[in-house]
């Protein structure tokens, strides 16, 4: 790569050195010759170019630049050369010297080799041998037709048409062609071919003819023009239908029946400037001067790009303007060159100390005059000539010259230290009366409104110049603040005034109305920037732009995509864009987008930005004094920067902003190329528009060495690759965007639909990696933006599908799902059963809780209160007199206690806490002990040391408790009983209870049993029967043996008792 910016900065002073060169010759137009600054890039074999002699250049619609050398063909994307040799050869044999590169109307690249024609299209090379057979031909030149196919000029065999792999038409001298030696060919917009026929030994065309391929008519040039022209080097029909011809010392243009001659003696005289090329702006490109310069011709003006200054000392072989406005130059032995005309220029003042080169303000004057304020002087700039004013009429040096304005009368007003000056015959003189009431006031803005009134903004108020006097408006007149930042006038005659304190004042019909942050203005000083025809005004603040339309205020900030937080200007280019400068350079934005974002209809603003890479000396703008940017009548824009002033033609600048075409070059899966460059034919690419069978046939017929499927940008017919299972453990995708303006700054975004959720982060890498992709259908998309942020929103697409392993297939999934469902059902069934059991347990538990609660309540409330009653009765007993009352109270106390006792038994039985055999035993033993002790007898207990963990249900406990109690009562009543024995034993699985006394016993006669009165068993007769019934209801056995040492014995089977749950 060769030197970065050259001629970056055009010194204003130096500019005059390259003033127009004009030579007045009658009826021959002189044209203007301007040496142009440009940036030159150079690539050689060191950058992987096959050879340093580049004879031919072409650009295919996918954006690639192709360079034909003597040793092969190279493809270039701005970053990388891909060299094709194998693809051009047959069985590795042949001559790689490229003779012609042509792109036909179908986008096919045609490469002429000494022994073959090779066609490249959509990644496929087809080779047609011209060595022998029907294609044998001695080709001298060829052009690709705008339709399709080739026109081929031969040596001695006339003109041939090559289409579909064969010569289809033939024109020879016998058919009216000038000679059989066809040396030069050009096709016009209607498909007609201009044919330059030469002599056998002389390359200059002897005659020119135009062939209409439809009618077969041949017309000579003199017939077309109506007069004869000779010595024509090249004849070129341009896009607009004009016919151009290069001759020694002249360039001719035939348009609409009129011939224009341009003198070219400053450019060339007797050296052939080579083939004429046209760029996308309609300018012509030539390489005169023995190949040391490239020249552009447009509208009578010659722009010269002198390569000699750049150390290029050999001939230029080919010049090719590309779609972005760069010009490519193929040289002999000097490699490949790229000329980037500098479209944005920083003009620097040549300040004496070389220090500060700041420009504070730019104002357009009459004609093409531009006024610049540099701080210490005022500059008048016209036709590259500069006049400067550094001293006032009082002889003192000027300071703080920071704004100037030329009004429509031609009067120039200048802001300088201490106030306002105007340019008179005497020089810059003070303006009497313009002082805002203060001697040290500072002018910040100068504005002439549509009616020709001059308005002056200052730090002390707003001045209006009317009839030679100045009228001052301040806060006393309704202005919100005296410190004014900027002034704009509206079509309706009203005035917008921005202030330092952050309000926008609207002066209409003599009244000020102020908008502030309360109305939605962004905070900070307000500079009105642009007023649109409908009265909509844009203002700049330190945090963004505001739009005020019909009283409604909207904001657009960096968050929405504004290039910088503060914008100093908005210039309308009359093509729907605003151009602005800020502290990050210059940007343009579509006016419609700006409105859409302000309206909320669009989320992101798209700023196309320009900076140092575009030739600017500084990206930091100046905007504190108005006017601070100017658009001249010729459309060029001027912006004041901290270094110099930036000048450009928006139209020229925008020519370079072509969305970059995107190409997916190659896809590798696990180290194997599966798509694109260098693909082996193992993978079948299903190309919808061409079956694999056909592709093979064509490939065979044309001896294609390699067939490379390629996804072009926006190609909806991109192939879908099917990869077998287990492939693409990792995937590497090479992509590129063919932008040559500043390829390193091209930005990409990509995503893999089916894997990525969204576009990935912007990157400048040209390769994407993916690993561990799951089986499925994938769509890789990549889009790109040029360095100015112009996006190609139509992504390049690579689609593929990854087959699943058997264990990743639907049948397998269905099998798994079925299995899982069955297993799930089983689990569910078990869970439901478990849940039911749990529910049952919970119900039981709730029941138990309820029982416990009832037991507790009975105890706490009923028991306690009854006990209280008994105690009261006791108390009353002690306090009362009279045996009868005492007796009755004693009875109350006793009955109450008996009641509580009974209740204790019931409650005990009820309380689930005692649901164990041990609990039962304890309770019974306690009952027996208390009862027997109370009766004054001896008590003997026999209980086992340990009890089996059995749950004794509440009813069983209740019945057993009552049986024991009944038995106790019986035993106590026995005559002569002194000791009562109670035993509780396990007999096998039976629970055996025995209650015996040492009394005399009784007969088994119910009637003889003593009545137990208040005892709980009710009347004695039923007592024994009840005992028996209770025991039998538990499935147990009840025995009553009367006599000495005998008593009640019951045994109850415990099988019905559940093991105690923990």
């Amino acid at each position: 790569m060769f030197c970065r910016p050259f001629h970056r900065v055009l010194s204003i002073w130096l500019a005059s050195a390259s003033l127009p060169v004009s030579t007045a010759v009658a009826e021959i137009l002189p044209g203007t010759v301007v040496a142009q600054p440009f940036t030159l890039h150079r690539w050689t074999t060191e950058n992987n170019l096959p050879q340093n002699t580049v004879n031919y250049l072409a650009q295919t619609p996918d954006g690639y630049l192709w360079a034909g050398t003597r040793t092969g063909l190279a493809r270039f994307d701005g970053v990388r050369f891909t060299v094709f040799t194998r693809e051009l050869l047959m069985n590795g044999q042949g001559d790689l010297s490229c003779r012609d590169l042509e792109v036909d109307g179908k986008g096919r690249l045609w490469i002429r080799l000494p022994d073959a024609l090779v066609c490249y299209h959509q990644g496929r090379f087809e080779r047609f041998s011209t060595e022998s057979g029907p294609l044998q031909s001695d080709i001298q030149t060829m052009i690709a037709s705008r339709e399709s196919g080739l026109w081929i000029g031969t040596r001695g065999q006339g003109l041939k048409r090559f289409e579909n792999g064969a010569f289809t038409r033939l024109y020879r001298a016998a058919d009216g062609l000038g000679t059989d030696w066809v040396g030069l060919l050009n096709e016009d917009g209607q498909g007609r071919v201009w044919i330059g026929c030469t002599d056998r030994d002389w390359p200059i065309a002897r005659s020119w003819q135009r062939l209409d391929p439809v009618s077969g008519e041949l017309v000579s040039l003199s017939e077309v023009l109506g007069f004869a022209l000779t010595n024509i080097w090249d004849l070129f029909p341009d896009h607009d239908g004009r016919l151009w011809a290069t001759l020694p010392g002249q360039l001719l243009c035939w348009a609409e029946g009129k011939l224009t001659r341009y003198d070219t003696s400053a450019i060339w005289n007797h050296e052939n400037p080579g083939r004429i090329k046209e760029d996308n702006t309609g300018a012509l490109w030539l390489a005169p001067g023995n190949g040391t310069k490239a020249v552009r011709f447009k509208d009578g003006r010659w722009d010269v790009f002198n390569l000699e200054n750049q150390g290029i000392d050999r001939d230029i072989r080919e010049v090719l303007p590309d779609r972005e406005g760069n010009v490519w130059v193929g040289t002999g032995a000097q490699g490949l060159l790229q000329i980037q005309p500098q479209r944005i220029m920083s003009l620097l003042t040549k300040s004496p100390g070389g220090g500060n080169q700041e420009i504070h303000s730019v104002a357009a004057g009459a004609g093409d005059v531009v006024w610049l304020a540099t701080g210490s002087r005022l500059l008048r700039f016209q036709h590259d000539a500069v006049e400067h004013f550094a001293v006032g009429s009082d002889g003192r040096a000027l300071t703080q010259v920071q704004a100037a304005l030329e009004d429509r009368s031609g009067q120039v007003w200048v802001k300088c230290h201490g106030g306002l000056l105007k340019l008179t015959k005497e020089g810059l003189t003070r303006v009497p009366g313009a002082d805002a009431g203060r001697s040290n006031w500072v002018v910040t803005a100068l504005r002439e409104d549509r009616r020709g009134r001059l308005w002056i903004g200052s730090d002390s108020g707003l001045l209006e110049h009317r009839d030679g006097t100045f009228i001052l408006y301040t806060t006393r007149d309704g202005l919100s603040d005296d410190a004014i930042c900027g002034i704009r006038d509206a079509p309706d005659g009203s005035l917008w005034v921005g202030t330092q304190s952050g309000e926008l004042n609207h002066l209409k019909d003599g009244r000020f109305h102020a908008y502030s942050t309360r109305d939605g203005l962004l905070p900070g000083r307000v500079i009105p920037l642009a007023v649109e025809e409908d009265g909509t005004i844009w203002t700049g603040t330190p945090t963004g732009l505001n739009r005020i339309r019909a009283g409604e205020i909207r904001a657009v900030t960096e968050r929405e995509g504004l290039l910088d937080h503060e914008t100093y200007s908005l210039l309308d280019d009359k093509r729907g864009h605003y151009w602005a400068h800020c502290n990050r350079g210059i940007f343009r934005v579509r006016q419609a987008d700006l409105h859409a974002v302000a309206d909320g209809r669009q989320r992101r603003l798209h700023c196309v930005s320009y900076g140092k890479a575009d030739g600017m000396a500084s990206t930091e703008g100046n905007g504190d004094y108005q006017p601070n940017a100017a658009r001249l009548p010729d459309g060029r824009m001027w912006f004041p920067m901290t270094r110099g002033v930036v000048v450009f033609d928006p139209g020229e600048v925008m020519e370079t902003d072509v969305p970059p075409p995107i190409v997916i070059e190659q896809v590798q899966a696990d180290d194997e190329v599966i798509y694109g460059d260098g693909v082996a034919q193992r993978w079948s690419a299903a190309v919808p528009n061409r079956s694999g069978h056909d592709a093979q046939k064509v490939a065979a017929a044309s001896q294609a060495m390699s067939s490379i499927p390629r996804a072009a940008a926006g190609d909806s017919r991109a192939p879908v690759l099917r990869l077998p299972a287990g492939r693409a453990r990792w995937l590497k995708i090479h992509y590129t965007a063919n932008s040559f303006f500043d390829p390193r700054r091209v930005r990409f975004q990509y995503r893999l639909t089916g894997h990525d959720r969204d576009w990935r982060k912007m990157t400048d890498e040209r390769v994407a990696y993916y690993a561990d992709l799951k089986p499925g259908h994938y769509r890789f998309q990549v889009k790109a933006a040029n360095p100015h942020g112009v996006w190609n929103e139509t992504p390049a697409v690579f689609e593929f599908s990854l087959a699943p392993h058997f264990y990743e297939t639907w049948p397998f999934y269905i099998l798994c799902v079925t299995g899982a469902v069955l297993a799930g059902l089983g689990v569910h069934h078990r869970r439901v059963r478990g849940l039911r059991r749990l529910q049952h347990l919970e119900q039981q538990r709730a029941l138990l809780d309820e029982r416990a609660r009832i037991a507790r309540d009975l105890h706490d409330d009923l028991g306690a209160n009854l006990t209280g009653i008994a105690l009261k009765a006791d108390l009353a007993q002690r306090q009362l007199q009279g045996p009868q009352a005492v007796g009755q109270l004693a009875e109350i106390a006793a009955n109450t206690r008996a009641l509580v006792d009974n209740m204790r038994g019931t409650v005990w039985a009820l309380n689930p806490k005692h649901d164990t055999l041990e609990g039962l035993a304890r309770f019974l033993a306690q009952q027996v002990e208390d009862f027997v002790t109370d009766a004054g007898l001896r008590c003997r207990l026999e209980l086992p040391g340990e009890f089996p963990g059995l749950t004794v249900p509440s009813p069983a406990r209740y019945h057993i408790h009552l049986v024991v109690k009944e038995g106790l009562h019986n035993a106590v009543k026995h005559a002569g009983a002194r000791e009562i024995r109670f035993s509780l034993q396990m007999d096998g699985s039976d629970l055996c209870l025995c209650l015996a006394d040492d009394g005399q016993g009784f007969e088994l006669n119910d009637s003889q049993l003593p009545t137990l009165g208040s005892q709980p068993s009710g009347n004695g007769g039923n007592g024994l029967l009840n005992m028996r019934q209770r025991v039998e209801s538990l499935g147990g056995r009840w025995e009553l043996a009367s006599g000495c040492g005998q008593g009640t014995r019951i045994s109850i089977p415990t099988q019905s008792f559940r093991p105690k749950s923990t």
Partner: protein
Amino acid sequence: MSIKVSIVEDNQSIRQSLAEILDSTPGFRLGDACATGEEALQRLLNNPADVVLMDINVPRKSGVHCVRELKPCLPKTQFIMLTIEDDSQRVFESLQAGATGYLVKNVPPDRIFAAIEEVHQGGSPMSSQIARMLVQTFQTKRPSSERNEELTARESEILTLLTRGYRSKEVADELAISVQTVHTHLRNIYEKLQVRSRAEAVARYLGG
């Protein structure tokens, strides 16, 4: 000298009646009558009684809790637990905490006075069920148990008899010792129970 008895009982009727009956019975005088555990903790410390009738279910700080707090501060005070139901587990917990006896509330006043007097005179009324639980408790050896936490042979003998329904008097007759000696043994057993339960608590605490 009459026995000073304090009552902790939440049922107002029982508390008042008991208090009046106590006050009107010769040989007894009323200390404090508290309705809650908190009240008891405040008042009983400042006005120590000889015997405290402590409801096992008193609200706000249970009876067991109160005994555990009060007993170390009032070593001379005997605590008799009052229960409405036969919940030997709770009773046993109180004994571990430092109570000396228990009564079912429903018993006539005479029995209450008898129990108070017995406890006051160094007696330790013990039912067969409590004895059973004591036996079970002391059967489980603690790894770090010291001598003063284990029962002597005589103490085990006494407890075994009690589990079989013997009264203190009958035990004394059976073993040919005085009732007073039986009571002394029982007191010792109670104290060992307390020591043991405290040690267990510490062990539990240390063991995390």
